[in-house]
């Protein structure tokens, strides 16, 4: 106990004889951290800057003079070219995926954590084993199967596909979320005569929200710019999600690629990810560390 009092860092006030040294240590920490942050964030901010340059400037070496030519020209040009349609497609797929994953994973997590039934271990293992099956390797059978079910060239079909491959993570997180809730809570509710659904909605809901937020964020971020699945299962232009619209700009264009447009399109794809993550990261990290890592 005495050693703890002597050596615990953290919440100790910065006073006393060793304070200057600690303050210097903190300064070094902040400087190193800032430099490292620059490495990770500046390339992304740089893309925002480059997206505001006309194509003629974007295709020349960056220079100080660029700063006086900033405009939203690429964005207005993209909007005229129909980028909002692809953005909406991406958004619809991502929202459908996030909603479906949250619903299905919450149900399954509840089922695995709170109910005993024959085969639950096997079914749970099967769902988790999906983590080991790369969907990238199942493109051909999935294409043929989804084609025969009319799910190719279909945003709902794409969302169902995304939902499935988000399930192992989602179910795992939700099951652990339920397991961390004191067993007494649902028992008490059962004794009071609440049905399992009622218990979930009225008693457990606030306690599982961090897990749900994690599941939703993962599913949304995964499907928002997922590439190879969309490339395989969508073929008509008017269903293209954002990355497909961009690859179309890169590959499909005759002659020179319009890099200004491409850069602006990439920034449009980036913004929701950044906003969502920064707004919800508390849940995101809590879910990540409690779900996957603690096992």
């Amino acid at each position, binding site marked *: 106990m005495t050693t703890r009092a002597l050596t615990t860092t953290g919440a100790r006030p910065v006073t006393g004889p060793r304070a200057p040294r600690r303050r210097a240590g903190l300064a070094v920490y902040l400087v190193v951290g800032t430099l490292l942050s620059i490495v990770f964030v500046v390339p992304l901010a740089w893309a925002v800057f480059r997206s505001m340059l006309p194509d003629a400037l974007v295709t020349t070496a960056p220079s100080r003079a660029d700063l006086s030519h900033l405009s939203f020209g690429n964005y207005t040009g993209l909007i005229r070219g129909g980028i909002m349609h692809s953005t909406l497609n991406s958004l619809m797929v991502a929202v459908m995926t996030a909603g479906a994953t949250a619903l299905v994973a919450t149900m399954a997590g509840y089922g695995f954590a709170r109910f005993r039934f024959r085969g639950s*271990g096997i079914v749970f293992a099967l769902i988790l084993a999906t983590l*080991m099956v790369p969907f990238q*390797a199942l493109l*051909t059978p999935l294409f043929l199967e989804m084609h025969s079910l009319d799910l190719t060239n279909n945003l709902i079909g794409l969302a169902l596909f995304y939902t499935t491959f988000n399930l192992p993570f989602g179910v795992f997180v939700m099951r652990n979320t339920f*397991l961390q809730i004191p067993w007494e809570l649902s028992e008490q509710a059962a004794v009071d005569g609440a049905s399992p659904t009622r218990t979930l909605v009225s008693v457990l809901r606030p306690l599982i929200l961090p897990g749900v937020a994690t599941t939703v964020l993962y599913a949304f971020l995964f499907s928002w710019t997922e590439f190879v699945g969309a490339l395989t299962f969508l073929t008509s232009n008017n269903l293209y999600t954002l990355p497909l619209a961009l690859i179309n700009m890169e590959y499909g264009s005759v002659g020179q690629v319009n890099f200004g447009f491409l850069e602006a*399109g990439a920034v449009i794809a980036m913004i929701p*990810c950044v906003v969502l993550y920064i707004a919800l990261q508390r849940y995101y990290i809590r879910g990540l560390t409690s779900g996957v*890592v603690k096992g």
Partner: protein
Amino acid sequence: MVSSRQKVTGEKSGSRDATVVPRAGSRFRFVPPRLGGSLRVRRGRTGILLVSPAFALVAVFVLFPLGFAVYISATNWPLIGSYHMVGGSNYSQLAHDPVFIHSVLFTLLYTAIVTGPILIVGYTLAAFVRANRPGSVLFRTAFFLPFIVGLATESFMLLLELQPESGAIDAVLGKLGLASASTAWTVHYGLALGAICVFVIWFASGLTMMILMGGMQGIPTELYEAANVDGATWWQKERRITIPMLRRNIALSLIISVIGSFLAFNQFFILTQGGPGTQTEPIVMWIYEEAFVDYHLGYATAGAIALVVVVGIVSAAQFFLLRDENTRTVRRGRQSRPGRRA
């Protein structure tokens, strides 16, 4: 995966009529006898209902396609028209296909290059942000941001910066005298591979950081306090305490990054289009091109099955190699210790 094992053992010990049901992560519980009988049957049925949508999706979009893939791989399936069985000939053809073999070797090379740096950079970042110091939360956010934005989006951004004359990479390296300002990164094998590896390390280290940081914060502070009393250096504490306690997290992050590398597609498809020729074509891209550009669905699927098998073996092997008796006792010790940092 560990918890699935926990689940199984938990069920074994918590047999039907037992009134004492041990449960992962909680105290032994006394289950009142009136919760038995028909109520238990009904609750079992509710459980099945609750998990069935998840199971149905997995059955339709994973299990069936997996079996179907094995079947397709034994045919000469074209995109349109009839097919017939060809037995194992797709597989024997694979073994002699220089393009396929190159894509396998290329994927292995790429994986070998990026895995170590991702772990080391991720570990360093995790060690840097694990304590709650002023700024650490902000730094975590910054380091994780590239992973959040996604590889596809960032590949489009990088495409511009890798262009000769106009890209920022050439501008910076040219100023520093490290490369010519007209270096065309995406059309030379070595340059493209190098650039993509650096890019992916930048992208993926944040995830490894998060996985390791979660584990680091679960290590009881008492261990470090004892080490401090003994006058241990930073590196001694990392080597003797953090790394052994982190085995499972390290295993997990390695599995995630190795499998991620095996399945690389976006960065190559967007940045090099597999070129020059098919020199930077990873396996997934080979499958995609073979199936949906050349319409050899049967043949492509045979390659895909090989990928499924390899990914399965890697996950199994890494779990096996990185788990030992030690981690299990550590885990148990951790669970029963009340005063640990959460």
